[in-house]
């Protein structure tokens, strides 16, 4: 274990640790452009230069390994001068079009210029011009004049997406990043190149000119596009999603997220169910609940009842749904709907396109309830159908079964065939508006947080069920996610053996909790 001294502070690190990592651990600020903890080391930006007792010249701290007896100085005049000079060179041909740059506000070059250079340009000649505002892929815009050639994007494509689609063309000051002739950057992780870009050279088509970053509010949540459940940050402004960014989570998605997950929020921007419906006609929420309570009484006690659960529901909503299901009249059977399995790869994307299938299975097991496949359940021509969620495959079969049923109730965020065919449809929250937990395929329980508030009377599933049970049953079922979490998770233990209920909903950290 090498022991080294950084600014006079001794630190012992594992062999193979870079100096910049040791500095990060000590909380010593080292400016950097090309170093990224999730990528290989390129050491080409020279922004992280530090003084070493083993070298007459400053060394790049992202590349130098920590070895025994090394003494590093990060605050000497030599280092300060080196940083200032490096930034001056980087900014030599930079167009400084920050007012129209989507990165402005979260740009490393802006921040480091103010921290380490802060002088006017001494470059009196015409700047090099490079291609600007080019679309180099379905999601990516390139502005080569802003590029500082850190090659992070090239390394993301090569090492993370395993799709070497970017490269550098030309030499010296005229170098820029480009795709190969006749091709474009179209791999499923193409938007990651925009995340890692320390400047505004690569930006996304989706976020282009949409909102300035300093207006956005970040909500830490989970992506619902596949069963990996990548940690995401939902950036909102004025109750609208502006973009979705990956959030660091070493056990789930490291630093990355796929394009499909980031663009999925568009599905819930239109065609939303905006009021409760009875037989396809909008009715007031309270009236719908009263009418449903009456209709429930008319269901015969021997009727075949089917509850279709969605693997996109939170564990809390699923718990409440099954608890209500157990109190319904008739012979209740449960089926699991959800989207069909799809594209998968060895990087992040899982075949199962539902975020909480594992959690739903856990809730069913905890409550001792069996679920049958959806197609088998529908074959039994149920007389009453309850459908939770709006992303079921076999939608036409479901609609047909609902037509044949005496009573059909749908809890859906989307307006569509299901909501129109139902005897009663209730507007629920989209995956970006719900509160609760999802359990991913690998046993990590993560907190889903609401980033938006619908302007109409949409409620989470558990709130609708709570309102219904107060009308229907003597016993009221909890309708608060935090309360439901404690009830639902009281028998589930985390990896270290502590019951999850002890931590409470707010006790789930940013990286989630690994389950046994």
């Amino acid at each position, binding site marked *: 274990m090498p022991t080294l001294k950084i600014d006079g502070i001794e630190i012992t690190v594992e062999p193979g640790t870079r100096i910049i990592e040791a500095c990060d651990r000590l909380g010593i600020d080292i400016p950097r452009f090309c170093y990224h903890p999730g990528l290989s080391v390129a050491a080409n930006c020279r922004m992280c230069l530090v003084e070493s007792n083993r070298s007459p010249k400053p060394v790049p701290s992202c590349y130098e390994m920590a070895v025994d007896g090394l003494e590093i100085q990060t605050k000497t005049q030599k280092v300060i001068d080196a940083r200032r000079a490096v930034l001056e060179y980087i900014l030599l041909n930079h167009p*400084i079009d920050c*007012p129209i740059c989507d990165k402005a506000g979260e740009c490393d070059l802006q921040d480091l210029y103010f921290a380490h250079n802060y002088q006017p340009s001494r470059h009196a000649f015409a700047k090099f011009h490079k291609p*600007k505002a080019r679309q180099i892929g379905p999601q990516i815009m390139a502005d080569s004049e802003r590029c500082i050639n850190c090659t992070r994007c090239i390394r993301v494509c090569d090492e993370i997406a395993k799709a070497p689609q970017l490269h550098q063309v030309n030499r010296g000051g005229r170098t820029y990043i480009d795709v190969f002739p006749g091709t474009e950057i179209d791999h499923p992780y193409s938007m990651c190149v925009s995340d890692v870009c320390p400047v505004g050279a690569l930006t996304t088509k989706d976020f282009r*000119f949409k909102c*300035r970053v300093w*207006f956005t509010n970040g909500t830490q949540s989970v992506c619902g596009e596949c069963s990996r459940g990548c940690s995401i940050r939902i950036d909102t402004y004025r109750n609208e999603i502006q973009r979705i960014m990956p959030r660091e989570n070493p056990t789930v998605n490291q630093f990355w997220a796929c394009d499909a997950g980031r663009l999925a929020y568009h599905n819930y921007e239109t065609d939303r169910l905006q009021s409760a419906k009875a037989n396809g006609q909008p009715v007031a929420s309270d009236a719908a609940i009263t009418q449903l309570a009456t209709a429930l009484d008319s269901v015969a006690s021997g009727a075949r009842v089917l509850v279709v659960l969605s693997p996109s529901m939170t564990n809390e909503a699923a718990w409440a749904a099954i608890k209500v299901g157990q109190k319904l009249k008739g012979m209740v059977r449960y089926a699991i709907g959800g989207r069909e399995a799809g594209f998968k790869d060895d990087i992040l994307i899982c075949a199962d396109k539902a975020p909480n299938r594992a959690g739903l299975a856990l809730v069913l097991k905890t409550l001792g309830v069996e679920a049958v496949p959806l197609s088998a359940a529908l074959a039994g021509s149920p007389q009453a159908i309850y459908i939770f969620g709006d992303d079921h495959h076999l939608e036409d079969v479901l609609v047909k079964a609902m037509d044949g049923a005496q009573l059909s109730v749908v809890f859906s965020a989307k307006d569509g065939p299901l909501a129109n065919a139902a005897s009663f449809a209730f507007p629920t929250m989209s995956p970006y508006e719900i509160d609760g937990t999802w359990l991913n395929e690998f046993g990590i329980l993560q907190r889903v947080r609401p980033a938006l508030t619908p302007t109409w009377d949409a409620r989470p599933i558990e709130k609708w069920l709570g309102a219904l049970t107060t009308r229907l049953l003597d016993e009221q079922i909890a309708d608060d996610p935090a309360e439901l979490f404690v009830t639902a998770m009281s028998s589930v233990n985390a990896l270290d053996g502590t019951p999850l209920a002890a931590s409470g909903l707010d006790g789930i950290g940013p990286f989630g909790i690994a389950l046994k």
Partner: protein
Amino acid sequence: MAKLVDRPKADLVIRSYIPEVLRGLRVTSRHFWVNFLTRKNVVTIEYPEEKYPYPPRFRGQHRLMKREDDSVRCVACFLCATACPADCITIKAGERSDKNEKYPVSFEIDYIRCIFCGMCEEACPCDAIRLDSGDHKLPGYTREEEVLQKEDLLAKGGLSIAKQGGILQ
């Protein structure tokens, strides 16, 4: 130490107010007849037909400046909306095909909220928004009339002699 003030008791002549009213009427009538007949030393003007010029630094209704080709100078950087303490500026940005890339598709100023502080003018890196139109926003009958659109703001705008920041000419 408090000073004792002598307060003589008002007699009937003073309490009747008549001599004092007549004295006041004399002053008023003198001014009226002098102004009516000679129109000398009249300090009032006949607003709204006649207006006082505002001082050059008066901050009135905004105007959006134009480029040489008559297009809007604003690049929709949102710095005015960021600086605005009243949150009265709403911009929607769009893409233009020339080298300037970005422009405001819509630019609204809500004059019910605006406090004419001039922070937007101060923040603008392109000299695209100014409050020097010399007009104040006239009142309207509806809330919609109080929200001026890009076209209204451009109508008062002229060519700016300042060099556009950040854009290579």
